[in-house]
Structures are given as structure tokens and as C-alpha cells.
């Protein structure tokens, strides 16, 4: 029967660093290691696991780098298979060279997340942990990493187990009354009432919120910066990013294409799109850019609309803003350094866009004033969006399990309130417990298997 092949990858992120790690997993790991690594130790590797300093070389003996070699005999390794590691000097070229060597000896470049996939399929870690591992790999901000670390550390898993226990406790009390109808029911064994189920509902809601927030931290959001020409949008983006990425010039319409860049706004990775100024224009090139800008606004989760002093928010601004109806919006009133300069009253020409819940933040890209306020407003708007509106990923699965649980708990509460036959509330509580079981991977239903197969591309 066909065995798994041997995969390899550079485990450390690309770029300069002190150490790079090349990981190899699969039946040929040991052979590959022995063929390109000359250990200083005699008899390396000795089972079940071993480490040795040594030299990595090419097939024809040319020296590549000094490295530390490790070997873990399966199943007691990360993936459950034989695993070898080469820890060499960090530096893209060196790591690449070693990886190329390893691949030429019979390994295949690992796909994203493939080591974790193998760990999952070999029963080395439960589903929820595998998903958390992927989260930590994808964490781009410290907040995200901290949250993902929590997940790996198992706090989320523990919370889920606690919740499951709580549901089963409630269920057990109800079942006891059904199977022992004659027994005395004292205070200790008093019937589960609606308030204890409400407690459980609260816990589930908290977990959903946590997930949504976490989702945000990992995946981030797309935010479009739009506005009429020459409102200083690019300058504003530069200021946000802290570097001179977008083209800034006096001539309106300089940013022809959308520029995307990611910034860390209060721990949320936000992809900003700076777009060509919208508003009517005759230049066809600019017009194309304008269309792209409108599209960017549509596909973003939050829009920052930039108007500027001294004009303030004009009628045309208000029209454009109205077109964004329904979109979470922050209005940045740029060039606040020009406020009152023309001697006009601050409010002249300044229209009230009349959109509830939409903050107007006065900023100056030039001086940096108001930027913190702007960040806060953007982060708030981003957080208010439910994370589960984003497609795909493990969070969607978790949130869907939790929402299923919540619905079942609500039904159980309803059943108790309407004095329906108690076994119906029991059926609902069982469903709720089952949903948490699915979250934890305790129960392998077809759905969960499909997720595993889809997400982890097994069997291709």
C-alpha cells in the first residue's frame, strides 16, 4: 500500500535571522538526513531521538553550512512520522540551498500547513489544536499571536470542555428526574431551571465574541481610503503606514491604481487601499482608477472617507458618503492644520453628513495630529463587525458550532418555559452538547470529515 511521501520545508520565516530551520517529515527523513549531513558525533542518529552538530554538504561533497541536525523517530515526533531537522545559520540563501539539497535527495516541498495536517491525521493532536496551530502560523500581529498562543495552550479548548461539562450537568439532572421518578427530589437535585440554561447561553455568547475578535486578529480586515481628489489621502496613508509607500504629489489624480499595504492598527492587521480620488473627472485614465476605487470601497469591510479643511465636508462629499450607505464608515477630516486659515468660520461649508454612528475625526497627515483618534475609530468599527461574516477558515467552523449550540440552548430554555414534556428539553440539551463535541472534534461526523478533507486536502 502506498505510503506517505517525505516532505520538507523551511520552518522559520523568510528573511534575515540568526537561525533557520529546515524540517523534514516522512519515511525517507532519516535517509535524507544521513545523505547530506556529516555529524560530528559518531553513530548519529541513534534512536529514538538524537541531536548532533555537523556539516551540511551537497551530493558531490561541497560544503554548504555548519548546522545542528536533529532526528525524531516516529511516532513520537511532531507529525507522528520520522522527522529530521537541520538548524543552520539564518539567511535566505543558505536556508534555500539546504532545502534544495534536501529536495534533491527525495523530499517534496511541503504545502502550507502540511506538517500540521499530518500531525492531525496521525492522531498527534486534536482537531481544535491543529486549527489553532494554523492560526498561530498565520498570526501577523502580537495580539493575534497572543490569542493564538492561548489557543495552543489549550485555554479555548478548556473553556469548551467546561461548557460541555456544564451542559451535561444540566442534562444529567433532568435525566435523573426522568429515569427515577419516584425518588425524592431535594434541593440538591432540584430541577434545572431556565436561569441555569441562561448562564450557559451567556458563556456560549462570550465564546462566540471571543472567536469573532480572534478572527479579526488573525485575518485582519480590508479598509478602503476614499475621497475626492487631493484630499491628502495618500499622505494620510503614508502617515498611517509610517513610510513613503504611496505616491504623493501636488497634481490631483496621482495615485492611479490602488495601493494596498498592511498596518497594525491596535493589533488588528488592516489592509489599507489608497484609491484614486473619486468624484467626477474627464481624464479616462483617472476614470478607470476611479472605478477601481469604487470597487475597493465595496469590497472593504470599513471605509475611511477623507474630506479636508479648509472646505470641510462639502455637498459633493455628502453625496458620495450617502452612496456608501450601510458600510461601516469613519470620516477623516484631513489637513486640520489648515483649519480656520482662510479666516472663514470653522463650520462654513461644513455639512453634517447626517449618518448616525459615523464619527468625524479631525486629522492632519502633515503634523500627525489626530492619528491616534483615527486609529481608535477604525479599530472600533472593525471590531463591531462580526468576525464570522468572513468566509472560510477554522473560525467559521468554530463559530458555526457555537451558534448551533446557542440555538439548542435557547430551544431548551423555551421548552422549559412552556412546560413542554421535559424530554424535549433533554433532546435540546443533548444537541447543544453534541455541537460543542463537534467543535472539540470529539465527534467525527460527516461534516467534520468534510472539513478535514477540504481544508487539509487529504487524498488528493
Amino acid at each position, binding site marked *: *500500500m*502506498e*505510503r506517505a511521501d517525505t516532505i520538507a520545508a523551511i520552518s522559520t520565516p523568510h528573511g534575515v535571522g540568526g537561525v533557520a530551520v529546515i524540517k523534514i517529515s516522512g519515511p525517507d527523513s532519516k535517509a535524507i538526513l544521513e545523505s547530506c549531513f556529516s555529524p560530528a558525533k559518531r553513530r548519529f542518529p541513534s534512536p529514538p531521538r538524537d541531536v548532533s552538530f555537523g556539516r551540511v554538504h551537497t551530493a558531490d561533497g561541497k560544503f554548504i553550512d555548519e548546522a545542528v541536525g536533529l532526528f525524531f523517530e516516529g*511516532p513520537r515526533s511532531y507529525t*507522528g512520522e520520522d522527522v529530521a531537522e537541520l538548524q543552520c545559520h539564518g539567511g535566505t540563501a543558505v536556508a534555500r540551498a539546504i532545502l534544495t539539497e534536501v529536495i534533491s535527495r527525495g523530499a517534496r516541498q511541503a504545502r502550507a500547513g502540511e506538517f500540521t495536517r499530518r500531525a*492531525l*491525521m*496521525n*492522531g498527534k493532536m*486534536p*482537531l481544535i489544536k491543529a486549527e489553532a496551530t494554523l492560526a498561530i502560523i498565520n498570526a501577523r500581529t502580537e495580539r493575534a499571536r497572543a490569542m493564538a498562543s492561548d489557543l495552543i495552550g489549550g485555554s479555548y479548548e478548556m473553556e469548551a470542555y467546561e461548557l460541555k461539562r456544564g451542559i451535561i450537568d444540566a442534562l444529567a439532572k433532568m*435525566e435523573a428526574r*426522568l*429515569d*427515577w*421518578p*419516584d*425518588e*425524592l427530589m*431535594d434541593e*440538591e437535585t432540584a430541577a434545572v431551571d431556565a436561569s441555569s440554561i441562561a448562564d450557559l447561553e451567556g458563556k456560549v455568547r462570550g465564546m462566540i465574541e471571543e472567536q469573532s475578535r480572534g478572527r479579526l486578529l488573525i485575518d485582519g480586515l480590508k479598509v478602503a481610503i476614499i475621497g475626492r481628489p487631493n484630499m491628502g489621502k495618500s499622505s494620510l496613508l503614508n502617515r498611517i503606514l509610517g513610510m513613503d509607500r504611496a505616491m504623493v504629489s501636488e497634481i490631483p489624480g496621482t495615485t492611479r491604481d490602488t495601493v494596498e499595504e498592511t498596518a497594525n492598527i491596535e493589533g488588528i492587521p488592516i489592509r489599507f487601499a489608497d484609491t484614486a480620488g473619486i468624484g467626477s473627472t474627464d481624464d479616462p485614465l483617472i476614470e478607470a482608477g476611479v472605478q477601481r476605487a469604487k470597487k475597493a470601497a465595496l469590497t472593504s469591510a470599513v471605509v475611511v472617507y477623507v474630506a479636508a479643511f479648509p472646505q470641510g465636508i462639502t455637498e459633493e462629499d455628502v453625496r458620495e458618503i450617502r452612496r456608501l450607505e450601510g458600510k461601516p464608515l469613519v470620516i477623516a477630516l484631513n489637513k486640520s492644520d489648515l483649519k480656520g486659515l482662510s479666516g472663514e468660520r470653522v463650520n462654513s461649508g461644513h455639512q453634517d453628513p447626517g449618518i448616525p454612528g459615523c464619527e468625524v475625526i479631525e486629522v492632519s497627515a502633515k503634523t500627525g495630529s489626530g492619528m491616534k483618534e483615527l486609529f481608535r475609530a477604525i479599530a472600533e468599527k472593525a471590531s463591531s463587525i462580526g468576525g464570522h461574516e468572513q468566509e472560510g477558515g477554522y473560525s467559521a467552523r468554530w463559530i458555526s458550532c457555537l451558534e448551533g449550540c446557542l440555538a439548542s440552548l435557547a430551544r431548551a430554555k423555551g421548552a422549559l418555559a412552556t412546560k*413542554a*414534556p*421535559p*424530554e*424535549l428539553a*433533554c*433532546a435540546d440539551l*443533548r*444537541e447543544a452538547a453534541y455541537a460543542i463535541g463537534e467543535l472539540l*472534534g*470529539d*465527534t*467525527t*461526523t*460527516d461534516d*467534520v*470529515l468534510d472539513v*478535514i478533507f477540504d481544508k487539509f486536502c*487529504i*487524498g488528493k
Partner: protein
Amino acid sequence: MRKGYDVIVIGLGHAGCEAALAAARLGADVLALTLRRDSIARMSCNPSIGGPGKSQLVREIDALGGEMGSAADDCYIHVRMLNSAKGPAVRAIRAQIDKASYQARMAAALESQPGLEVAEAELERVHIESGRVTGATIRGEKVSCRAVVLCSGTYLGGKTYIGEDVREGGPEGFPASALTPSLLDEGIRFMRFKTGTSPRIASDSIDYGRMELQPGEDLPYCFSNIRKPLKRDQEDCWITYTNERTHAIIGDNIDRAPIFSGLIKGVGPRYCPSIEAKVVRFAGKHRHQLFVEPITRGGREKYVAGLATSLPRDVQDRIVRTIPGLEGAVITKYGYAIEYDCVDPSQLDHRLGFRHIEGLFSAGQSNGSSGYEEAAAQGLVAGANAALWIKGCPPLLIGRDQAYIGVLVDDLVMKGTDEPYRMLTARAEYRLALRQDNADMRLTSEAVRIGLADEARKAAFEKKLKFKEALTSGPPADTGSEAGLTEEEMWLMQCVKESLELDGIYGGYIEKERRMAAAFRRLEQQPIPEGADYKSMYRLSAEAREKLFERRPSSIGEAYRIPGISPSDIAALIIHLRQEANPDGRRLQGDIEGRLIGDRR
């Protein structure tokens, strides 16, 4: 006794009686053995049948053509519907049975069954050659047979305890069976369990005025699916309680209690603990409920349910006298505990036959269950399957989604049990659908298929189906059709009406359960090919590979229920199977189809 039979049934307790009758009714030539004729269908413990979980079992036994239901209907002296204020799925009939009439009634059924011979004898040894049953040694003589059904109850290696008094032997002083060693030789694994019983009290020494009366009820139906129970005068039950003084005496003498002194090693039932266990475990509880139950109509003795104990006799005397109404009680028979060997049921398949020994079946308390109803249900399944196997017919296999009997067998066989197993409604995932009132709708067709439904049952069921058709498709108040019906038919119609109403109460929940049951069926129907090579499935843990190799599950659903197999093992198993199927899909498809056809031949 002749030289040869088709089936030999060891023991005529509740499992043995059903096994013997089922096998004989399916046309097998049956020899049923009992150590003493007067212990046939004896209720050694609580003289009652039914209760939550158990009532459903008895209605199902009846629907399948078993005897317990109609025997209980004939012999009850007190009956009540429990949980009547709760939903229909958890309502249960509980009946107090006249112990003596019940025994006589069952003995008569055995006597009058063609193809069934009852003998008072001990079976010393089962003969197994090349993994197949060939016969048995009875009274020193070799008797040949093709199948043996073991229903020895608590008799294997039985030891009775009252305080420090330990005796070899089964209940009521009967000798223990020495069958265990020869079965051990065949590689059969045993467990050691314990169960207990309460003292019996002289009826005229009880002060009923100090206890709470619980009268019987007139129920529209009892355990039979096809016959209305005869109305009768009922005996009363009485409720009383232990109190602090009772508990104090137990506490003071706890070191003399065999389960706490270490004398008894066997594991007792969690759901039916002795009074000393209750007092120790639920130390905060001020009182425990007791039921004073009639044993026979107008009988001299009453049974005190809830007071199971193996404390020394003198302690039992003192305990009893602290209980309201029993201050002057005279104990006619002391409570005792019995320790016994029982078969580890995980060695059995869903027919209740041993996987590694052809023709050997096992049923009842000797499989680690507790309760007459659980025993009888297993007896019916094992006896029927012994006969069906001999005839080369497809087996009687009941799924968890079909009946409580299915839950019982599946739990025992797939999960095993580490304490005496008692049926509870909580064990059934599809509780809303498995009600006592719809047992026949779920099972009669199975009974007809294998041949356990007699003409009367078939006829009654046909009528019920017609009524159901009329009631569900016709106009609601179809009073016209009620005109020409006999009293019996009216009763059947009423039963159907009630069932339909009860279905309605659950509404969408039943739908949901059905969908879950369908999902369950799908997993059950995802077959694992016969020659699945577990040892080569490198993704599975070593433990999982071992267990799968030993249990040889026939479907993913079954594999799932093996304890110690984790969901990631199942996922890995599916991956291996899918990968195996991919390269040569058609070949494997053929294997799978062949297997399915084989099972349904």
C-alpha cells in the same frame, strides 16, 4: 433426555425462558436445563416488572413474540403508570407481580411448547471442537447439539453474603455452577459482579397506618401489544423512608458490611446500590425512600424495595425497626448480596453469539446486565439467533435506532460494561421515537419476518395498521367506522389513536431525531470491507489497530462505538479506506456489495 438436540439452553431464569421459547417457536429442537424446576422464572429480588427503560423493553419483547409481556399481564397484582405527568417517551408501566403465579404461568408456557423439553439437571461442560459447539456433558452423559445458549444468571461461581456469613451458592441456597473453568479453557473472559436484595417482612407485622398508601391504577393497556389486560382488584403498595437513626446504625456497623470490609470484590450496580452504599455515598441525604411491595396476592410476606443489603442479620433487624411502619417488623428472609462470574459481553457480536466460538450464545445476567427485563430481552435475541443460525437464515439484528433492545445489545456488545448494566431511558439517543406505545409498530414486522409472530399477533397487527391508515388519511372524526367493531377492535383503535396523538406532541423533535437516526444509519451502512488490513493502517494508533483487529467492526458506525477508538482514529480509518478504494474502486465496490448481500441473504 435424548442423545441429541438442536439447541441446549442452560438455565431457565428470565433469559432462559425467553431463549428456550423463541428457539422452539422457530422450529428448533430444544433442551432447556434448570437446576431446580421450582426456580423457573423466579424473581429473586424485587417482584416487579417494568419502570423507566424497562417497560419499553417488555413491550418490545412482546412485540417480538416473547412471553414476558403476556405473562406479566396475566399475573400482576398492582400496576401504575410512572411519569404520567411527563412526556410520552418517558412514561413507563410498572407492575408488581404475583411471584408464584408468574412462575407457574411461565412453567406452563414451557410445558405446552412443542419442540421444547425441560429437564432438571446440571450442565457440566460444553464441548467445543475447532471453534464450534458440538455438544455438552449433562449428568455425566454426552449430549450432542449444534448450539448452546448460556443463561446461567448469577449461578456461575456464585457466593452469597450476609454479613460475615459467606456461602457458596446461588440465590435461595442453590448450588453454584462449576461451569466457569471449562468456559475459561475456551478463552472466554469473565468479570466478577455483585448484586443484592432486600429483606422480606412478615405482612402482619407491618403497621400500614404509618406509611403512605400507593394504590394501583386501572390502565388502558399494559405490557401486551395485542390484548387488553383483564381488570382485577389490586393490592396496595406502601411508601416509607429511612431516617437518621437508620443511617446511624448502618454507619456504626459499616465495617461488618461485606462490600466495605473488602470481603466482596465484585462490582455492584451503581443504579441500584445497597442501602449501606447509599448511606455512605449520599451522606448528606436525610432519608431514602422505600417501597413496601406485595409478593403474592394476599401473601404472608412483603418485599421492602430500596433496602438491598448484605449487612449481618442482627444489624438488619435493628435497621428495619427504625423505619416508620416497620417498628415491629419480623424479617422472614434476610437481605443478602451475591457475587458471581459473568461473561464479558464485548466478546459477543450483535446476535449475542461469541465471535470466536460458533454456536455458543450468551444472554441475561450472566452477560453483566441486571434486571429481569434486560435478561428476558437478551434471551429472546440469543435464542432466536441460535435457531436462525442453525436454519441458515439471516439473524435477528436490532439497531439502536429501532428499539431499546437494540440499545441494550449494542451497549453490551460494543462497549462492554464494568458494572451490572441497567436500562435507562437516558441511554437511548432516539428516546422520543422509542416509546412503549409504539413497540409493535417498530418490531412486529421483524417478528413476522423471522417467524415469531403467531396468527393472533399477525391479525391484531393488521387491524392496527388499517386503523392507523384510516385515522391518518381519513377525516378526523371518523365515528362511522367505529360502529361494527368488536370490543377488542375498539381497544386496538384506541391504542392507535393514542400513539398518533403522542407522535403529534413531539412534532418537529421527532423529525429531528429521525434525521439523526438516518445519519446514524448512514454510518452503519458505510461498510468496512471484510479483509480490511488494520495492521497496515499506519495512521492509526497502535491501540486502535489492535482493537479494530480484535472486534472486526462491519461498519464505520460500529467502529465508532468501540471504546478507546478516538474520532481522529475514525477519520484516519476513513482515509485509509478511501485511499484503498481509489486505485481499484471497482474491485472494492464488489467486496462491499458482496458483504452487504451476504448479510441480507
